[in-house]
């Protein structure tokens, strides 16, 4: 519960102080199909290696299945499928990031885990309108890095829109 409130705080904090350009926040960077994404670090519960997942029949295609994380049942979501990507080139040793949403745990299956980056608010830009609609829906904005762009994942949206 505590973590949950904290998450709420950060996000509201973040939106309120966007004009405060010198402020920064920490993001865990991940890679899905070559694209770098960021997840606000406080929303990350856990990072897991490859896990054995129990398939859930009749579930939405993005749902890879369920797994047991220290006694809690976690729903695994295939991030590639969620982003509308084919999964053919996914590496074998995939990683997972566990996030909490509405008191439930979700594990996003991704390709690679990167560093935790502290990014300045002045580098934050809203999601460009030309982005793929699916991507636009699940991202809260974009950070300009030195050599690439980092898309910030909006975790609640990412999860809530799975069944639609």
């Amino acid at each position, binding site marked *: 519960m505590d973590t949950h409130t904290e998450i709420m705080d950060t996000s509201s904090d973040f939106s309120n102080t966007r004009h405060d350009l010198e402020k920064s926040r920490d993001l865990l960077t991940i890679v899905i199909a070559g694209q770098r994404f960021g997840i606000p670090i406080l929303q990350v519960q856990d990072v897991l290696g490859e896990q054995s997942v129990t398939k859930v029949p009749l*579930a939405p295609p993005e749902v890879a299945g369920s797994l047991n994380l220290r006694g809690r*049942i976690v729903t695994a979501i295939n991030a590639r499928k969620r982003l509308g990507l084919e999964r053919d080139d996914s590496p074998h040793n995939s990683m997972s990031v566990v996030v909490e949403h509405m008191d439930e745990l979700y594990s996003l299956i991704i390709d690679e885990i990167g560093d935790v980056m502290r990014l300045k608010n002045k580098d934050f830009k809203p999601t460009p309108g030309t982005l793929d609609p699916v991507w636009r829906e699940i991202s809260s904005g974009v950070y300009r890095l030195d050599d690439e762009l980092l898309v910030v994942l909006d975790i609640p949206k990412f999860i809530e829109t799975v*069944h639609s």
Partner: protein
Amino acid sequence: MDELVAEFLTETNESLDELDVDLVNLEQNPNDADLLGKIFRLVHTIKGTCGFLALPRLEKVAHHGENVLGRFRDGDLEVLPEYVTLIFECIDQIKYIVGEIESTGSEPDGDDTELIAKLDAVYEGRGLNGSESDGNDSNESSANTSDSDTNNADSAEEKSSGYPGGPTGNISQEELDALEAAFQDAPGPETSNANGAAAPNGSTPPESSTEQSATSTVEEAQNPEKSPTAKKGPSLASQSLRVNVDVLENLMTMVSELVLTRNQLLQIQRANSESDFSGPLQSLNLVVSDLQEGVMKTRMQPIGNAWAKLPRIIRDLSMELGKKIELEMIGQDTELDRQVLELIKDPLTHMVRNSGDHGIEDPATRKASGKPEFGTIILEAFHEGGHIIIQIKDDGKGLAMDKIKQKIIDNGLATAEELEGMADQQIQQFIFKAGFSTAEKVTSVSGRGVGMDVVRTNIEKIGGSIELSSKEGFGSTFTIKIPLTLAIVSALIVEAANERFAIPQLSVKELVMASHNGESRIEMIKGAPVFRLRDHLLPLVSLTDILQLNTPKDANKADENTSENVKEDARNRYIVVTQVGNFDFGIIVDRVFDTEEIVVKPVAKMLRDIDLFSGNTILGDGSVIMILDPNGIARQAGELEIAPQDNAVEQKSLSTSQEKTSLLLFSAGDPAPKAVPLSLVARLENVDLEKVEHSAGKMMVQYRGQLMPLIPLNHNVQVGTEGEKPVLVFADRDQSMGLIVDEIIDIKEEYIDVQLDGNQQGLFGSAIIDNKATDVVDVAYFLNQINQNWFKNHGDDDYDKNAERGNGRAANQNGTLKQRVLLVDDSPFFRNMLTPVLSIAGYDVTSLDSPLEALKMCEKGELFDIIVSDIEMPEMDGFEFATKVRENSPWVDTPMVALSSHATPKDIDRGMAVGFDQYVAKFDRDTLLNAMSQTLSDHRHKASATQH
């Protein structure tokens, strides 16, 4: 203190804390309808509960507060800060009274006229008198002090009047001082008032508030010693502890982890058994198991806990409304997860109260419509098909369809045309909509339209559903279905297409292995698999098919014909015979593993739409597994018309002789096996013959603190003086007797079909049981031999042992259809005894334990040739039953035989007067049989006479 009151206080204090927060929020978001609704409901609950606990002062304050909130909710009144302050005042007053009740056990003296007047003023739209200009502090302080009606309070008021208050009506330092003085003078500890008054306003001068809180803390700390009533506190508190469910949840998670780790350790240990760790590991194993069980237990509670206060509520309700209501509770032991229990507690209370208030009519109306004066509310809980079902039935007036329709139209929920096209069932569901109430008058009990709305919200919150069926004039039945979420169930683990699934053991009837060929194989009827299970055809579904577990390659093939999957495979398959309601079907699986105790966890939100699963869980090996919902599978399998549940429930209470009877087989004296209906046998004991005593020429043994007479089945049974002998113990109420036999052989399920009439005393005759001629023992003969008074205690007069036998067996001599007998008797002993007697005599017997059940069958249109009814029964006696049957029912012409307990001429006359055709002393078997055949033949004559 009354347990109910104590519970009410705990609950109310919790609600009040919530209220404070919510009200502050409301002040900031005056248009938040959800919030308003919530606050309204909280106050409504407080009001409703105190009505039943006889707390008139508290009720009054809450009632008037609720009035104002009701206007906020309806949007009639703008939520102005000063109104919120007024509500705060009202809440503070509630807190004060609650605090007083807590410390003294009763409501404090004094009245709240002023506060109520203000609330009413706002309610009636007059606004607060001069509140804008004067500063409402004077009003407020008077409200706060009005209860401590001493001179000090007056002086406090004088002092404070004219003091310029802040816009939100803060209390000044002086006021507080004065108040404090007043409180200290007033009898009893009153700190809560001061606290309550000061805290929510929050903006009192700093020193004052610190001082205030400091004083109160000290006072509070001293209170336990000072106040005489406070002594009860510790003893109450030490017995139980309120623990946050989150803590338990955490504990549970940790224990699960511990179990998993333990399992891994055991795995390692199995690999190298010669390890030094094995000893400690074994004890760890045991401790962990105990711990797991203990933690699980902390979460499970019998549903009876939530019902404990209902009888009182119903009692008070009947007093208040002048109704006669009886509450019957069935299945109190059904265990529920604590969290779920908490959540359904209020809705249940609300609904039972509603049934009493809206459902049951007053005695006069009931009498006029031919119902017993006492209305009955039946509350029943049981497990079914992986769910917990709670039913609330009343035999009241049911839902008035016209009123509901009118209300729906008035509230614009639907148009008259739309209603036209709806079934009654659909229309009835409208009562669950917010703001709907058909009670003409808003009473303190219900009628504000919050009721069913709250109920539904709370039940849906835990993933449950609520249904209503009502018949105008006959009562309503609410069925609440709660998923087993978090409950512990035993589940069968099966495998299909290399995936494992759990099926709740409750719905599994049996397991059958189907071989690829041979007799027990799966057969096809136009692509639909079926299985011949003994004498009936069992429809099958393949788990692989309904879960679409085929690999994509097979999928195309499977599309063409699902049966291919089943047929093609040469392996043996298992069929899990599953029961949903009273519909049986088989689930085809590849493998069957063990059963495991599992903790059902709800599935993630995004998977909740799949109705084939009722939850998921973690198995002992740490893997996640989905729990199948047999109901969902049955629906998916196309069995849409699953018989209504109450049908299935009733089915259980029926036992017809067409069904098999469990028989205990034993030998005694001669080689022929003997049999007795197992249901008659209370216990099997081995009696040490050395302990057998003789008294008045009879054998006795001390058994459970009483002398139990013993009797050998026949004189061929050798009873020595040492060793042990098996004894069949028969017991009814506080009497028991033992029948000495030689050897217990077996228990068999057989149809009793007595083919040879026995001429030996104590035997009904012979029947073929387990392919052997078997003597069926007449227990009644022995009971009577032991104790002439055995049946007298049931009120019967001495019965003639030498009554002629054999004449009674006339029922189906011509080989036509068996005569159907309905046997109604509340004593299971007699029911079990008479069922075989009657079926042996050639009747087709249906036995029921109460006339109410019988009337239900009557309503359903079941027909019988003759009714045999006991007279003394708890809910409805035989006379009343007969009156009902004779009054106006399909059974009006069915002959009835009374089994009397009091066969005095007066009783017999009364029996005949209410419509019995015959009156027989209870368990005068032969007379009964004679009377029955006599009655039946009389009846036939009469019937044919009228035909001609």
